[in-house]
């Protein structure tokens, strides 16, 4: 029997390899370099190189490779760019946030890069096993990052909670993989689809259905969809703000990356999942928003609101059309800018022991730091989905895809939820602009540190400018098609 050597096209791995290499370099340099901030800048250079590589690859398609385990298509590359943006902005926050809390260290940046590589793997995977590998690479790094502020009880709690529940979800996912394999005889996304189309009579066999349900539970946990969201507020609230910013966008995007490919490629012929996702979307939007209404802490409020945003994105999954996929990519990219921007403001204001994230501490911010308040106003209105900010276009895109795909009612539920969300986003603006400042002595601001200020300025500028002129991002996400 001849030995077939599988095609190994490393071009498909370039972005992932670039990130992992950067991570390893950071780890190595960590031994020699005293000033750990340098490592952050090294990471940024690596991310920049990765971004360039992604842009270079965008025009060429690489066929599925590594025994059909991986693909480098428009979809995975646009996602890679989303992850790169997320990681870049979070590292810039961390460069200011970590030294202010004596948390500066080399492994922070290495872990963050490894998590990013896991996310990229999830976006490129065409096999459930590889999805699982990516999921674990990402999650394990994130568990550690969540607990990174070891002097603080809340951070440890966040890490442990995330770890225990995350492991539980991984088990669900793996069991789902096993059942799917049992039903269809393969873990490859394409082969699963072929099996379903070859055996339409077995399309609804219970093993495959239970397998899909378990897979969905695993993903629902990662993207923090209701009713699998219980871990989210505590983890997001307890973790260091720079980490929260990263995982609220990155982990969510990675979860969606694999979920969308799985549903559309493997289960595209079996539309039963549509109503499940529909109801998941309704529950997630509504649940996240209603609980967010009651929050008195801005960081926690954003944690719940990020649940709601997962719901809006799920609306884009329901139609299962290329429009929906592009809408999701657009939404994720815009969400990366506006949400991380908002977290950057929190990181800047946050005092030690998290005094600064309560909503009262935003009172009168516009008098003390007018530009900072203006940027926060941009982010809040953008998250609400008010033009001319980028968040509006994200919502528009997914709701448009839903209406076009025949799910108008979901779009209407989404709109109603936008109004609910307006209430708590507005309350931040109200505090900043319409209340008088508390005594200045009570809250002293740390001097504005350059990297986080840059992050806020960058995110704010993108939020506004791409809101006024969204065409570049629309064109980019239009490339996001399966190879």
């Amino acid at each position, binding site marked *: 029997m001849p030995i077939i050597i599988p095609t190994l096209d490393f071009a498909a791995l370039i972005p992932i390899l670039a990130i992992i290499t950067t991570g390893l370099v950071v780890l190595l340099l960590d031994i020699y370099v005293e000033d750990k901030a340098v490592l952050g800048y090294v990471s940024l250079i690596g991310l920049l190189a990765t971004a360039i590589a992604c842009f270079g690859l965008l025009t060429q398609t690489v066929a599925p490779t590594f025994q059909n385990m991986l693909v480098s298509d428009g979809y995975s590359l646009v996602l890679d760019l989303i992850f790169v943006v997320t990681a870049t902005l979070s590292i810039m926050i961390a460069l200011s946030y970590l030294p202010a809390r004596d948390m500066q260290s080399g492994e922070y940046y290495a872990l963050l890069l490894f998590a990013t590589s896991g996310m990229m793997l999830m976006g490129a995977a065409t096999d459930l096993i590889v999805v699982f590998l990516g999921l674990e690479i990402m999650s394990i790094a994130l568990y550690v990052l969540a607990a990174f502020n070891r002097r603080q009880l809340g951070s440890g709690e966040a890490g442990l909670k995330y770890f225990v529940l995350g492991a539980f979800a991984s088990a669900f996912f793996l069991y789902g993989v096993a059942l799917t394999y049992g039903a269809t005889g393969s873990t490859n996304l394409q082969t699963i689809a072929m099996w379903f189309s070859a055996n339409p009579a077995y399309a609804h066999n219970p093993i495959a259905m239970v397998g899909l349900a378990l897979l969905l539970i695993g993903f629902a946990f990662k993207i923090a969809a209701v009713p699998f969201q219980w871990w989210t507020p505590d983890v997001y609230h307890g973790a260091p703000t720079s980490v929260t910013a990263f995982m609220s966008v990155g982990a969510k995007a990675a979860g969606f990356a694999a979920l969308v490919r799985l549903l559309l490629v493997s289960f595209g012929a079996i539309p039963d999942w549509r109503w499940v996702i529909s109801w998941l979307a309704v529950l997630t939007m509504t649940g996240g928003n209603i609980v967010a209404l009651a929050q008195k802490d801005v960081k926690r409020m954003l944690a719940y609101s990020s649940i709601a945003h997962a719901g809006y994105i799920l609306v884009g999954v329901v139609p299962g059309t290329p429009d929906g996929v592009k809408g999701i990519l657009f939404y994720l990219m815009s969400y990366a800018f506006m949400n991380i921007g908002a977290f950057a403001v929190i990181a800047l204001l946050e005092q030690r022991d998290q005094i600064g994230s309560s909503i009262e501490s935003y009172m009168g911010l*516009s*008098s003390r730091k*007018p530009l900072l308040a203006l940027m926060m106003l941009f982010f809040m*209105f953008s998250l609400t989905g*008010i*033009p*001319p900010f980028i968040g*509006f276009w994200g919502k*528009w895109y997914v*709701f*448009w895809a839903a*209406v*076009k795909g025949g799910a*108008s009612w979901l*779009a*209407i539920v989404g*709109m*109603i939820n*936008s*109004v609910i969300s*307006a*209430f708590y986003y*507005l*309350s931040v*603006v*109200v505090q900043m*602009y*319409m*209340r008088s400042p508390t005594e200045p002595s009570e809250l002293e601001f740390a001097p504005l540190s350059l990297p986080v200020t840059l992050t806020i300025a960058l995110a704010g500028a993108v939020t506004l400018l791409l809101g006024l002129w*969204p*065409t570049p991002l*629309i*064109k980019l996400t*239009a490339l996001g098609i399966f190879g």
Partner: protein
Amino acid sequence: MSFPILSLLIFFPILGGIALLGIGKENVKGIKIMAFIVSIFELLFSLPLWFSFDKTTYQMQFVERHSWISLFNIEYYLGIDGISILFVLLSALITILCVLVSWNSIEKKVKEFFVSLLLLEGAMIGVFCALDFFLFYIFWEAMLIPMFLLIGVWGGPNRIYAATKFFLYTLVGSLLMLVGIITLYIQGGNTFDILALAGQHYPVKLQLMLFWAFFAAFAVKVPMWPVHTWLPDAHTEAPAAGSVVLAGILIKMGAYGFLRFSMPILPEATSAMMMPMLVLSLIGIVYGGIICLAQTDLKRLIAYSSVSHMGFVTLGIFALNTQSVEGGILQMINHGVVTGALFLGIGMVYERTHTRKISDYGGLATNMPVFASFFLLFTLASVGLPGTNGFIGELLILLGSFLTKPWVALIAASGLIIGAWYMLWLYQRIFFNPVNSRWNGIKELDAREIATFLPMVILIFWIGLYPNSMLEYMHVSVAHLLEQVTGNTAGIPSGVEVAVDTAVKATSHLPQVSH
């Protein structure tokens, strides 16, 4: 390509507002002067519209059209016709008055105030010029942000509640409209071009759904009963300039939306929904008027009177004949001028007394005779005294609605009586009752304040004595609009044709021949 005058009108105040940011915070005087100059130039720039507008065509004029977001076929498409031109001009004028009335009354965050005001002006003019439904929506929503800040930052004691309520009410309506827009886009051949959307035929059921989706946005803005409750709060708490913009321009946008979108795009639904709309308008007229009688707060009273007056406007629009629609549009301008002037006056007197309670006043005519004369004129214009602009608008509306449904005009006319009652009673309580000694040393109007009133006085008499100078701008456009509404109703029996038929007969001076 002709000079892009509409873009200039939209972006000049926006850029002016951004330029204001460059002035130092301490230089309060410089900020005010700069804002004033920007608003004056804006009016000057808008004058060519008035003079070079072609009144003989319903076609859009001063058109600018560029592709904006090609994936969704969204265009940057501007143009005005006889329906929108007057609102563009009014917006430019009212903003100047807002700058003037805010001269001394705004004490904190002066720079931010004028920046918001100018951004608001740009967005408002954008709303009236947009011919792409999506572009319209963007201006419509973007306007919310500066207005929210104007009410919430510089408003009265209960401002946060009022600002949030304003924002949420409007947002609910707008988002339902957005779903409607998407549906229309998909059904109407992937375009947002308002003119192209209007030329098509949609299933009646779809039209009705879309009508109510648009209604949600426009009726909240007008505001029509029963979604009017945000208005009294917003008006009461807003600073003087905010109230003037609200009364003068913002609430006109709802009625404008009916004229620009609901009627031409959904003609069958419009004629089918005529009765419900007329009834809602009547409720607004009578209910708003009666509520006015019970008010103890000066601004709240004028706010409820807006509900009543805007009821007349929507009544005119949905009575669907030439007189009533033209009357409705004219009455929008009139209401903008008169209620704007009333709010300006209240702003001035509030600056001196810091109370809005009617019972705190009394005998002000003794201390402020000039102010009392101005206010009397505005009061009379508000109740529709012949010779003032209010008379013309209300007369046209009543005449038009009488032709459609006589009993409607009858009930609406009772609103006029209530209107005279609460306005004159208000005037009596403020200016004539025994002199309240608290206001003995009160300052009379200064030159700036008189200058603020003068444009309004001129407009009141101008429209009142020579209404045709305004009406001639809209004749052709309104005729075309009604043709769009009634021309497409062939398959549906409705009162519209009858109404128009009667209207034609009634306006003809030839002896009637029986057929």
